């Protein structure tokens, strides 16, 4: 790490809070009535990030890869619960499906990046695995919620078409192929857009963080690229697993559309 790094202590954070007070004051004097939400938001952010800092500092002491994997599994579970909450009419047994697909895609991508790309035993410590895993899981979560919601609405609006395909001898996967494609595309568009404009309009978060803490911008750019590839790979795999499993939920083994779930 470079020696040009400025240490942000709690006093600096307290000073930074001044900007939050500006926001609260502006809201109050203009009658926007957002003060309450702003205060709650600021307090929550301070608490959550401080706790996260302590938790990470503690977690980084863990030496076992298996404990780290367990923490990541729990993070993926929390993501699955969140994703289920975002789907309007989740099917029964949605959480295991979401958990398997979120964990499957993000773990594959994180393992690939740490073992094959970084190829350093250090990469298998919580210091790398947890932030990378969190990044992958968070992005996959957004993708899988979008895909789940879209898949369900596609099945509903394309019901007649799907049943005509079934009646002509298509299996469930063939009959649902269009809906799967629509859901996949809807979920991938934000990632594609990000790949197109990254570095042009805004500097992505990881790069900002690394540059601020003194890393050479080129190294930071390479890290950012790895993270982007990890997100693209992990998300694609998660969506593939998730949508294949969803087809099996929305259709019976006898290739019948379960209309009661729509």
């Amino acid at each position: 790490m470079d020696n040009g790094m400025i240490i942000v202590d709690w006093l600096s954070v307290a000073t930074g809070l001044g900007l939050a007070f500006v926001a609260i004051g502006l809201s109050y004097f203009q009658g926007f009535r957002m003060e309450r939400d702003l205060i709650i938001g600021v307090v929550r952010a301070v608490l959550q990030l401080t706790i996260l800092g302590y938790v990470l500092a503690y977690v980084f002491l863990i030496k076992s890869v298996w404990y780290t994997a367990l923490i990541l599994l729990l993070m993926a579970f929390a993501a699955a619960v969140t994703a289920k909450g975002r789907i309007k009419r989740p099917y029964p047994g949605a959480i295991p499906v979401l958990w398997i697909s979120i964990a499957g895609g993000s773990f594959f991508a994180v393992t690939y990046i740490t073992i094959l790309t970084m190829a350093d035993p250090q990469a298998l410590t919580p210091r790398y695995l947890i932030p990378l895993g969190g990044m992958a899981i968070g992005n996959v979560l957004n993708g899988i919620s979008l895909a789940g919601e879209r898949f369900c609405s596609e099945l509903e609006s394309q019901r007649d078409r799907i049943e005509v395909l079934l009646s002509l001898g298509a299996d469930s996967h063939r009959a649902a192929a269009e809906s799967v494609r629509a859901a996949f595309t809807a979920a991938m568009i934000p990632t594609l857009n990000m790949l197109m404009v990254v570095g042009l309009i805004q500097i992505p978060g990881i790069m900002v963080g690394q540059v601020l803490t003194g890393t050479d911008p080129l190294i930071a750019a390479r890290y950012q690229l790895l993270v982007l590839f990890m997100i693209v790979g992990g998300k694609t795999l998660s969506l593939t697993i998730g949508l294949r499993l969803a087809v099996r939920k929305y259709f019976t083994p006898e290739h019948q559309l379960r209309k009661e779930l729509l």
Partner: protein
Amino acid sequence: MPALFEFRSVTYSAPPRDRGAVPTPILVDASFDVPRGVFAVITGPSGAGKSTLLRLFNRLADPTSGEIRFDGKDIRDYPVIELRRRIGWVPQVPVRFAGTLEDNLRVPFTLSRNLKFSAEQIEAAVGELKALGLLPEELYRRKADDLSVGEAQRLTLLRAVALRPEVLLLDEPTSALDPDASDKLLAQIERIRAERNLTAIMVSHRPEEVRRIGGLTLRIVDGRVVTSEISPQGGRNG
């Protein structure tokens, strides 16, 4: 020789949309036969379960209890995909796929992983379908989205018989059409049925249609299926 379809104490309750809710019974203890080669009509008040009953014939749905036999065997003993290839289905609302009418007619030949058709076979089959004369020749190269409802319904009908099924299921195919167009479509259905030697089962809520077709009538009354024979265009004789 057994009837083509034999329903034995068939009960069907729609799976509830909300977990824990009580399933709504639609068909109760229905037993009847549909002999080979007939043009049967399913009729009854709206909401009686006519479309639901039709969906049991090609296993888009399965009975809650009871047995359906097809061609002498339990319908569940046939691999469902093969079964459906023997039974064409025309839904209430016409369904058009992307592309031209010809593209639409090719769809049935592209759906199976293990049953492959050569390009020549497909073109020959599409040619035969066009030769049935349901739609004017110049229409087949147009986009399916440009069709009127009546034309789209005829396209759906052609596509349903593309794989040369033995049975044709029709779910109120004329419901979106005016009386003239309905008459025309019915006549075409009758002609295809006769030419291709099909057993047809059609849902209809129009008494004049039911009388016109005659033959076997399956009337759903309070979840029970009552069969009768009506002579075409005329009075009852059984």
